[in-house]
């Protein structure tokens, strides 16, 4: 399994000279299986460049959406496979308690927010509600989806191919309401998805100093991400969903400080746009 980061920024696309290395595009991750099969995780602005690398010959694309906040779907209308006639594109994402996935997506992919309607896309679009499914197969991958702690219906994903595993929890606040984080695994949001994975891509939007001002916004501090990864026993942690106001220089400082503060039982690889991981 090869994992490539096409968008690492949280909340808002952040182009500019201060965001060159960590990147300015919002959440999008490519997962390639051994046979070249493709999973796309979220459709933030990073999905546009990924889409340009995909040819109709691929035969099938699976797009997994953790939730429908704008920074995770804004690139949808610019994802080239959606405009490839007849190409099967399976979109997996959460419904709400009152609307199915299609109705929720139509809120964005329709005027006045977007000129092209979902129903007018020329690909062969198949929508799947992951809240009802729980575990499913997306192409060659075994996927587990579970609701996690973030405002609105939001899932995290655990993805397995043969003995390789990864978890993707880009928007996640497992420390919300926990007095001494982390609690026991049984009572920790997202634990089962992340338990023992080779690679964990996890929300680390805020510095420890910033977090108290944003409790309940659905995101983690860097320390929370580190402690969650330690509890889950992962091999590599990729802190992700960087706060838009954090420059390359500040992110370097924050992660140098995090590394110096404690001995970590896993590899720490803060997300940078374009980075790849072989699992």
């Amino acid at each position, binding site marked *: 399994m090869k994992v490539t980061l096409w968008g690492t920024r949280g909340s808002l696309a952040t182009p500019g000279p201060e965001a060159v290395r960590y990147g300015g595009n919002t959440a999008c991750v490519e997962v390639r299986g051994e046979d070249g099969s493709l999973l796309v995780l979220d459709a933030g602005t990073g999905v546009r460049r990924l889409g340009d690398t995909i040819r109709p010959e691929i035969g099938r694309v699976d797009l997994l959406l953790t939730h429908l906040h704008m920074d995770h779907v804004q690139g949808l209308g610019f994802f080239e496979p959606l405009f490839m006639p007849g190409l099967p594109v399976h979109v997996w994402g*959460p*419904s*709400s*308690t009152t609307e199915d996935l299609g109705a929720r997506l139509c809120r964005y992919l329709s005027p006045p927010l977007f000129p092209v309607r979902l129903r007018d896309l020329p690909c062969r679009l198949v929508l799947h*509600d992951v*809240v*009802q499914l729980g575990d499913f197969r997306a192409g060659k991958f075994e996927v587990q989806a*579970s*609701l*996690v*702690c973030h405002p609105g*219906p939001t899932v995290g994903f655990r993805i397995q191919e043969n003995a390789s595993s990864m978890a993707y929890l880009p928007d996640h606040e497992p420390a*919300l*309401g*926990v*007095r001494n984080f982390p609690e026991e*695994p*049984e*009572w*920790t*949001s*997202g*634990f*089962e998805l992340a338990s023992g994975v080779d690679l964990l891509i996890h929300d680390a939007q805020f510095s420890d100093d910033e977090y108290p001002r944003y409790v309940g916004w659905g995101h983690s501090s860097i320390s929370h991400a580190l402690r969650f990864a330690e509890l889950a026993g992962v091999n590599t942690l990729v802190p992700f969903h960087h706060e838009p106001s954090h420059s390359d220089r500040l992110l370097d400082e924050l992660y140098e400080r995090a590394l110096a503060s404690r001995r970590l039982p896993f590899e720490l690889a803060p997300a940078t746009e374009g980075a790849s991981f072989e699992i």
Partner: protein
Amino acid sequence: MAQREIELILMRQLASYLAQPILLVNANGDLLFFNEPAEAIVGKRFDEIVDIRRGEWTALFKPSDNHGAPIKREDLPLTIAIDKRQPAHLRYWIQGLDGVRRKVENTAFPLVGQAGRILGAVGIFWEIDCA
């Protein structure tokens, strides 16, 4: 042990911050959690309790009405919330694990997650001052 559903995790976290006595049970009616204010009604600290299974509630807490007549398990608010998926309310007496009888008001409601998943139920208690 498997991780609990997110709705149960959030409910427990909310309960741990509230000053009202709250019990949380799973979809079988087995005890998952009670908060610190509920310790005064249960008569023990949560960490001192190993397990309370669905069928053990009436034997442990001996619920009864104003006349001392036992209340059947199926008439207790938490049982109604689980079995009938309805909110329920009752004023009755229970005997805590410390042996003290207390008069309580108890409201219970089911926790229904997305896609209609029954996750458990919440019981909120108010101790009635009989002095």
